[in-house]
């Protein structure tokens, strides 16, 4: 509850600062619209915003699911197979040195203007953070516990399922939290590369017509969705790994 009021207070402060800046610098609405103008757009254009937000939300959620599944599989593959560590490991890192922004137009070219290409862009944008966090957690399972399991007669696969994976869940949770915040951004980037619907598309559309207030409204919608998704995933991760001491207090 206290965190909720903290968020409200900092949001109110930011809006006040924004209003003050517009007022004092006497900025025209096509440079920086005042908070009131943006609020009015939320009211007048709520149907447009909803329609486009729905698309981006769907792309983000599907991209999150796909990217997380890929990241989890990659983490397990890296843990269990030395061949995967040798061949997949460098590829994972390499794929991260290519920015999502550069890949998005290519993926839109290959998969089309529909939501599929954005889902793939979002998945590519997040799978690495999921894979690397999860793999780290799998590797860092308590060596003493693994020794004891060996003496008890555990096989490699029960060691993985009964010790390494449960021990890695908190790390996986923090990876998924970061992924949840980033998935909507990646989906919007995908939309910039070519789309006919979605918040990213709406931003470009509004920008081109100097409807900066609508662009701001779309941007805020995207940001709020990202925050809410991040908070929900964080909450679920904390609930599922309540035994982990570090899961309690982080932003």
């Amino acid at each position, binding site marked *: 509850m206290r965190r909720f009021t903290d968020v409200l207070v900092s949001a109110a402060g930011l809006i006040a600062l924004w209003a003050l800046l517009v007022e004092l610098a006497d900025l025209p609405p096509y440079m920086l619209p005042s908070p009131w103008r943006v609020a009015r757009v939320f009211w007048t254009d709520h149907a447009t915003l909803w329609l486009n937000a729905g698309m981006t939300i769907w792309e983000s959620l599907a991209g999150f699911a796909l990217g997380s599944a890929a990241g989890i599989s990659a983490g397990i593959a890296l843990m269990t197979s030395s061949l995967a560590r040798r061949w997949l490991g460098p590829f994972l890192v390499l794929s991260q040195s290519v920015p999502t922004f550069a890949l998005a137009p290519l993926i839109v070219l290959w998969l089309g203007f529909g939501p599929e290409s954005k889902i793939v862009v979002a998945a590519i944008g997040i799978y690495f953070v999921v894979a690397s966090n999860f793999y780290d957690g799998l590797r860092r399972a308590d060596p003493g516990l693994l*020794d*004891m*399991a060996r003496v*008890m007669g555990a096989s490699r696969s029960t060691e993985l399922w009964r*010790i390494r994976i449960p*021990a890695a869940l908190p790390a996986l949770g923090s990876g998924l939290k970061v992924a949840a915040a980033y998935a909507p951004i990646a989906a919007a980037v995908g939309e910039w590369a070519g789309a006919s619907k979605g918040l990213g598309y709406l931003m470009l559309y509004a920008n081109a017509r100097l409807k900066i207030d609508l662009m701001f409204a779309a941007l805020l919608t995207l940001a709020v969705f990202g925050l809410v998704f991040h908070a929900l995933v964080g909450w679920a991760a904390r609930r599922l790994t309540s035994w982990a001491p570090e899961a309690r207090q982080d932003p």
Partner: protein
Amino acid sequence: MRDLARGPGLRLRGDLTLPEGRPLFRSLDFRAEPGVWTCLLGASGVGKSTLLRLLGGLEVAGTFRGEASAADGAPISGRAAWMAQSDLLAPWLPVRENVAFGARLRREKPDWARVDSLLAEVGLKDWAGARPSALSGGMRQRVALARTLMEDRPIALMDEAFSALDAGTRARMQELAFDLLQGRTVILATHDPGEAARLASRAYVLVPDPAGARLAEPHRFRTPPLRDPASPDALAAQAALLAELRKPPVGEAPEGRAP
């Protein structure tokens, strides 16, 4: 007492060379008597844990040439239980599941009646559903003991199993473990001469040496364990073991000489 098969005698012979080429021990011949506690003392880093790991069939740093064997000829693997300084409880599992962890790891069906009776024996009947983080250090080590007993193995390898506990808790844990592990071959690595003086039927000191650590002559006790810490036998043993541990390492200047 339990009607258990007596644990076998154990022997570890061989050389271990560390990765940097230095020998950790050379022509070592360690023996544990069947069905009793053997304590292994020595400074930190002298190789006590390594010796236990070799007996337990675990990986060690360096190359080992030699063999770990049981006097009855059967392999040690599958007949030993492991207890370490930290309790090694899985933090995500409740106490009851932790006690049954060995069966789970072998994909066997846990004997829940036995789990509950062992938890009662270590005095944690009411904590079966609690997470390890809700327990004190002493309670957690008692869960670890219940898990070791659940394994029902004739051999117990204990690496500083009681070292992390406060003095009072440690004394109670030693008594409980001694009582519940009757008839098993127990090897306890420890740096506490007092612990060895209470529990051991035989106590060895592993003496550091640049040419490879070696075992000092074992201390022979006159009375059987578990000894009263104030008994003359325990006090004499404690003093003798401490004297052995205090000797300066070979190759180092003896105390008292001016630089």
